[in-house]
C-alpha cells in the first residue's frame, strides 16, 4: 500500500468520473437531468475501443467514441426538450438503449487483443514537485492532463462568461431567459449534447487509457451512475466534482490494494486469508456514495444550496398559471 501509487491511480481513473461529471454538470445546469450517462459511456467505450481495434488508431477511437456519446444524447434532447417527456424515464431508456447497443456493437470485441493506447506523459519540472509531481504529473495519460485543463475551463465558462450567464439562466429560470431572447431550446440542446460528448469521452477514456478492453457492461460498471451522484455531491461545481472524482477513484484503488498484503496494520489481513470477505470491501464505494449524499443533503439544507431551480422541468413557452 503505497499512498503515492494509490493517489496517482486515483487521478488516472478518476479522470473518467471527472469527464462524465463535468458533462452532466453542463446538462443539469441547463435544466436537463440526463440519467443516461452510463449508457452514453458504454457507447463511448465500445466505439472508441472498436475503432482502435479496427484501425489501430487510438486518436480516431477517441474522436468517434466521444461523438458516439454525443449522438446518443441527441435522442435524450429531442425527447425531453422538444417532446417535453419525463427526464428521469428518458434517461433510464437511454441507459437501456446505450448498454444494449454497446453490447451489440461489442459482440466480438471481448476477444480482441491489445490495442495501442493513448500516449502517457511525464511533465518535466512539474513532476519533480514534492508530493504533487508523482501523483499528478508522472506517467499519466494525455487524457488526464486534458482533465486538468477541462475543469478550470468549465468553471470559468459557467461563472465568468456571457454564455455561462445564459447557461445558468436557462437552468434557473428559463422563462426569464426566454423573455430576453435567450434561445432556451437551442441552448438546452447544445448543453445536453455537450454532456453526451463528455460522457462519450469518459467511456473512451476507460477503454483507451485507464483499463483497456471490452468486458460488456462491466467495462463501465456503474461509473455513469456514480458520476450522476458526484454532481449532486459537487453541488454543480466542476471543481468540487474533480476533487470528488479523484478522491473517490483513489479510495476505490485503496480498497483493492488492501487485499494484497498478508499483514494489515500489524495484524493478519482478514481479506488476504478469507477471500469472500472482499465482497464487503466491494460494497464500500457504493455505500460511500450513499453516505456522501446523506452528508451533502444535510449541508444543502443548512446552506440552502440546491439544484438548478428548473432542473427536470420541461420548458413550455408562454404557459402561465391563472
Amino acid at each position, binding site marked *: 500500500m503505497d499512498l503515492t501509487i494509490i493517489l496517482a491511480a486515483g487521478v488516472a481513473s478518476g479522470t473518467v468520473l471527472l469527464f462524465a461529471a463535468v458533462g452532466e454538470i453542463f446538462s443539469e445546469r441547463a435544466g436537463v437531468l440526463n440519467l443516461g450517462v452510463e*449508457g452514453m459511456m458504454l457507447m463511448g467505450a465500445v466505439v472508441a475501443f472498436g475503432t482502435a481495434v479496427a484501425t489501430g488508431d487510438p486518436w480516431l477511437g477517441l474522436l468517434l467514441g466521444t461523438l458516439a456519446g454525443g449522438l446518443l444524447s441527441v435522442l435524450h434532447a429531442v425527447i425531453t426538450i422538444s417532446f417535453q417527456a419525463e427526464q428521469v424515464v428518458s434517461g433510464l431508456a437511454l441507459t*437501456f438503449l446505450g448498454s444494449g*447497443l454497446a*453490447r451489440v456493437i461489442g459482440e466480438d470485441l471481448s476477444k480482441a487483443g491489445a490495442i495501442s493506447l493513448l500516449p502517457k506523459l511525464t511533465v518535466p519540472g512539474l513532476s519533480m514537485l514534492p508530493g504533487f509531481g508523482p501523483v499528478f504529473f508522472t506517467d499519466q495519460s494525455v487524457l488526464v492532463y486534458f482533465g486538468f485543463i477541462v475543469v478550470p475551463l468549465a468553471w470559468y465558462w459557467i461563472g465568468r462568461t456571457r454564455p455561462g450567464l445564459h447557461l445558468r439562466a436557462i437552468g434557473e429560470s428559463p422563462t426569464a431567459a426566454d423573455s430576453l431572447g435567450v434561445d432556451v431550446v437551442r441552448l438546452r440542446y447544445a448543453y445536453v449534447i455537450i454532456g453526451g460528448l463528455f460522457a462519450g469521452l469518459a467511456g473512451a477514456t476507460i477503454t483507451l487509457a485507464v483499463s483497456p478492453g471490452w468486458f460488456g457492461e462491466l467495462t463501465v460498471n456503474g461509473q455513469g*451512475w456514480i458520476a450522476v451522484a458526484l454532481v449532486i455531491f459537487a453541488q454543480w461545481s466542476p471543481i468540487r466534482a474533480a476533487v470528488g472524482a479523484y478522491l473517490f477513484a483513489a479510495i476505490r484503488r485503496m480498497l483493492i490494494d488492501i487485499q494484497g498484503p498478508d499483514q494489515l496494520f500489524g495484524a493478519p489481513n482478514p481479506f488476504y486469508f478469507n477471500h469472500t470477505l472482499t465482497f*464487503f470491501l466491494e*460494497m464500500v464505494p457504493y455505500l460511500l456514495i450513499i453516505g456522501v*449524499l446523506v452528508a451533502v*443533503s444535510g449541508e444543502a439544507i443548512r446552506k440552502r444550496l440546491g439544484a438548478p431551480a428548473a432542473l427536470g422541468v420541461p420548458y413550455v413557452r408562454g404557459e402561465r398559471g391563472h
Partner: protein
Amino acid sequence: MTTTSPVRLPARGSRLPWSLRLERRLAVPRWLPVATTAGAIIVALAISGLILWIAGGDPVAIFVHIIGSSFGSLGVLSDTLVKATPLILTGLACALAFRMRLWNIGAEGQFLMGAWGASAVVLIPIVPAGTPSIVTIPLMMVAAMAAGAVYGAIPGFLKAVRGVNEIIVTLMLNYVALFWLSYWVFGPWSEGGFQLSRPFPPEAWLPRLSDAAGAVPDFAGLTVHLGLAFGLVAAVIIRFFIFRSRRGYEIRLIGDSPKAARYAGIDVTRNTIVVFAISGALAGLAGMSEVAGVVHRLQQAISPGYGFTAIIVAYIAKLHPYGVIVASIAFGALILAGREIQPSGIPAMIQGIILFSLIASEVFLRYQIRLERREA
C-alpha cells in the same frame, strides 16, 4: 391567462415550408392512451427491426422466432409465464412507487434481498429440515417480503427525512445487494466451493402445474408455479389499494402534487417510507418466487435484470396493476426468446427503444400536433 397557448417545436432558422404546431390538449379521449401505447410499440419494433437489418440480421425471422419460442405451444407459453412471474411482482413494485413519483430503480436489489431472505429460512436454517411446505413456504414469503421491505425502506427513509436522491441510493443499493448475495453464495452457503448454495429441500419448492400431472395429464411438463398466483393476487390487491383505499388516495394525491397533499393534511414523509417498503416487499416476494419456484437454490445469477425490466413494464402499463400483467407477459416472452438471440445485447436494446418510443408517444397525449404552412 389560459394555459392553452401554442408552443412550437424548435424551428428557428428552418427553411422548411411547414412547421409543426403543438397545441395543448384540453381533454384526452379514453382510447388515446391505448392507441399511442400500441403505436409506440409498433414503431419501436420497426426501429429495432431496422437496426437488426442494418446489423445484417433478418428482423422478420427474429421476431417470428421470438413469438414462436414464447407462445408457440403450451409448454413454451408456460415458460413465458414463468419469466413473466417475477416481472409482474417487480413491475407492480415499480408501478406503485412511480405513482407517487418515487423513482425506485432498486427493485433489482430488493429482489435479490428477497431471494436471500427466503433462502435464509432453509439455508441458515431457520426451520428444521423436514418442516412441511405449509409452514416453510409462508415463512419464506414473510422473510422475503420483510427483507425486501427493509431494503426498500432505506432509500425511502433517506428520501423522506433527508431529501436524498432516491434514484442514486436505490441504484447503489443494487450493487450492494449483489455483493451481499455473492458473499453468501461464495462463502457460508457455498456448496463445495461453487458459487451456488445447496438445493432447497422439496418442502421449500413452490408447487408447479406439472405436480398435478397425475390428475390432469395435460399439465405434464408445465413449469408454471404458484408464484404466478402471487403475482395475479398482488395485482388485484394493488389495484384496490391504489384506487379504492385511503392510503391509495393519499399516494395518488402526493404523486400529482406533493404541496396539495401536504395542504390536505397528508403525511408525505410517512407515505414515502411506507410506499418504498411496500414496493420493496413486492420485489422481495418476486425474489422468493424465483428461488422457490424456479431455481430451487440460491445462486449469484438469479436475475437477468428483472428489476430493471420492471421499470419498462410499469411504464408500458401506464402504472396500472392489470396493465403490468399484460406487459410482463410480453417482456417475459422477450426475455425467454432473448436468451437464444445473438448478440446478447439485442433484448436490452429493444427494451430501450420501446421505452423511448413510449415516452416520446406521450407527447400525443398532451398535445394535438398539426402541420401548418409557414407564413411567408
